[in-house]
C-alpha cells in the first residue's frame, strides 16, 4: 500500500500510546468497576462507546464497498439497524438498567427463568463474542498487514494484543474511554477523507447521475425478498448483543442509557449515508477496483496527504479494536458471572482475577481462531443468525416483565439455537442467514410454548 515513513510513525505512535494508556489505567476497584464501570457512565460516553462498538469494518469498508457497486440501495437495509438501536434506547435499555445487581444478560435471564437459562445465555454470549472477535481480528490484521507490510499472523496478534492490554488492566471503563478516543479519530479521519475528495471531483452533476443510475440498476436487479432479508438481519442480528447490553447496564441512570442508545441510533443514519457517499465518489476519483470492499481505502489513498493517510489507517485499526475489545470484555464478564459453577463462591477480588484471566485467554483464542475465520461479512452474518433467535426472544419477553416460566426460557433458547444452527449447517433454504433467523424465531416460540406446557404439567403433578 502507498504508505510512507510519516504514516508508519503515526501508526506506531498510536499503538504505543494505547499501550501506555493500558498501563496508566491498571487500577481497578472491584468487579463492578471492572465489569460495569461502577454504573456511572454518562450519556455522552454511552453514545461514544456504543458508536465505537458498532462501527466495525462491516459498517465502514463494507458499506462503502456495497455503495461502490449498488449505489444507495442497500441503505434501506442498514437503516433498520438505526431504527433498532433507537427502539432499544426507547424501550429496552432503560428496562435493562433498572435491574440491580445484574452484570450480564445471563443475570437478567436468571431472574426470569432460573439458572439453566442463565448458563445457556452465558454460553451463547461467550461463544458469540469470541467468534465476533476472531472475525474482526482477521479483518483488522488484513488491513494492518497491508498498511505496514508485515505478515498476517503478526498483524492479527498486534491488533488483538494491544487492545487486550487495556481491556485486561482497566476493564470496561478503560474500554469505554479508549472507544471515545477511537470514535473521535474515526470521525475525524472519515470526515477528512470526504472533504479532501471534494476538490478532486471535477464533474459533480455526473456523480449525482452516477449515484442515481447505480441505485436504479441495483433496484432492478435485486429481488425484493433479498432486501427484506437484509432488513430482518440488520433489525434483529445485533440487537442487545453482550457488548451493547453492557453499555445499557453501565449507564449512570436509566436516562443516560436511553439517551446514549437513541443518539447512537440517530448518528448511525449520518454515518451510513457518509460511507455510502464515499463508496460512490470513489468511482469518480480512483481507478476501477477489482474488489469493491477496498473502495474506502482506495479513496483515502487517492486523496489524503501522507501523515493523514497514516491517521486514516489508525482509524481503520481503531474501528476494529474498539469493537473487538468490547467483545472480549463482555465475554470475560459473562464467563465469570454466568458460567462458573455456583459452588464457586468468589470474592470480589477473585472475580476480577477470573475476568482478567478470561480476557487474556479469549484474546489468545481469538488470535488463533482468526487464522481460520471466514471473511468479515460471512462471519458476522453467521453470528447474527445465531444470536437473534437464541437469546433475543426470551430476553425481550423478560425485559417487558411478561409472565415467564423456568422451562419456557430454556425451551426458547434451545429450540431457537437448534433451528438456526440446523439451517446454517445443513444448507436448507440456501443456508441463508435470513432463513436461519426466521426459522430460528419460529422454533424459539414453539420451544417456549413446549417449555411452558412442561412447567404447567410439573406444577399439577
Amino acid at each position, binding site marked *: 500500500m502507498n504508505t510512507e515513513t510519516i504514516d508508519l510513525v503515526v501508526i506506531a505512535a498510536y499503538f504505543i500510546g494505547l499501550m501506555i494508556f493500558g498501563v496508566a489505567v491498571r487500577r481497578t476497584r472491584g468487579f463492578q468497576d471492572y465489569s460495569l464501570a461502577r454504573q456511572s457512565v454518562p450519556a455522552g*460516553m454511552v453514545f461514544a462507546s456504543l458508536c465505537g462498538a458498532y462501527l466495525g469494518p462491516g459498517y465502514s469498508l463494507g458499506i462503502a464497498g456495497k455503495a461502490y457497486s449498488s449505489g444507495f440501495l442497500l441503505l434501506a437495509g442498514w437503516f433498520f439497524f438505526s431504527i433498532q438501536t433507537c427502539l432499544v434506547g426507547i424501550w429496552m435499555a432503560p428496562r435493562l438498567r433498572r435491574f440491580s445487581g445484574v452484570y450480564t444478560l445471563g443475570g437478567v435471564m436468571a431472574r426470569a427463568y432460573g439458572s439453566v437459562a442463565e448458563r445457556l445465555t452465558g454460553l451463547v454470549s461467550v461463544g458469540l463474542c469470541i467468534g465476533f472477535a476472531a472475525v474482526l481480528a482477521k479483518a483488522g490484521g488484513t488491513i494492518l498487514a497491508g498498511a505496514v507490510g508485515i505478515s498476517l499472523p503478526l498483524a492479527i496478534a498486534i491488533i488483538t494484543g494491544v487492545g487486550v492490554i487495556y481491556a485486561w488492566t482497566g476493564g470496561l471503563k478503560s474500554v469505554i*474511554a479508549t472507544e471515545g478516543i477511537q470514535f473521535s479519530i474515526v470521525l475525524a479521519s472519515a470526515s477528512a477523507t470526504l472533504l479532501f475528495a471534494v476538490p478532486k471531483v471535477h464533474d459533480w452533476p455526473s456523480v449525482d447521475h452516477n449515484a442515481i443510475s447505480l441505485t436504479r440498476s441495483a433496484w432492478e436487479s435485486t429481488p425484493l425478498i433479498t432486501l427484506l432479508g437484509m432488513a430482518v438481519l440488520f433489525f434483529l442480528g445485533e440487537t442487545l448483543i453482550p457488548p451493547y447490553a453492557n453499555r445499557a447496564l453501565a449507564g449512570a441512570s436509566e436516562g443516560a442509557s436511553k439517551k446514549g442508545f437513541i443518539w447512537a441510533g440517530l448518528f448511525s443514519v449520518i454515518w451510513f449515508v457518509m460511507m455510502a*457517499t464515499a463508496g460512490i*465518489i470513489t468511482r469518480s476519483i480512483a481507478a476501477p477496483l477489482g474488489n469493491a470492499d477496498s473502495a474506502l481505502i482506495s479513496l483515502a489513498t487517492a486523496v489524503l496527504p501522507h501523515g493523514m493517510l497514516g491517521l486514516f489507517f489508525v482509524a481503520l485499526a481503531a474501528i476494529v479494536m474498539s469493537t473487538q475489545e468490547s467483545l472480549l470484555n463482555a465475554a470475560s464478564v459473562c464467563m465469570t458471572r454466568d458460567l462458573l459453577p455456583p459452588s464457586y463462591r468468589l470474592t470480589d477480588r477473585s472475580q476480577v482475577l477470573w475476568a482478567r484471566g478470561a480476557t487474556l485467554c479469549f484474546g489468545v483464542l481469538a488470535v488463533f481462531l482468526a487464522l481460520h475465520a471466514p471473511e468479515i461479512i460471512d462471519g458476522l452474518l453467521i453470528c447474527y443468525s445465531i444470536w437473534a433467535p437464541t437469546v433475543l426472544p426470551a430476553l425481550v419477553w423478560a425485559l417487558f416483565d411478561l409472565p415467564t416460566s423456568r422451562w419456557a426460557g430454556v425451551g426458547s433458547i434451545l429450540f431457537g439455537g437448534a433451528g438456526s444452527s440446523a439451517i446454517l449447517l445443513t444448507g436448507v433454504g440456501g443456508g441463508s442467514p435470513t432463513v436461519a433467523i426466521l426459522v430460528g424465531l419460529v422454533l424459539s416460540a414453539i420451544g417456549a410454548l413446549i417449555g411452558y406446557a412442561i412447567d404447567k404439567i410439573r406444577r399439577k403433578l
Partner: protein
Amino acid sequence: MSFMLCVCIFLPCICLALSIITLAVTVRYVRKVFFNRNDSH
C-alpha cells in the same frame, strides 16, 4: 447545486464537530474516572 457535493461537505462538517465534542467528553470522563478530577465546578 449537486446533491452529492452537499452531502460531501455538510455531513463531514457535522462529524468533525461531533469528533471534537466526543474528544472533549472523553477527556472529561478520563480525568474524572482515572485521575479523580471533577470538572463540574
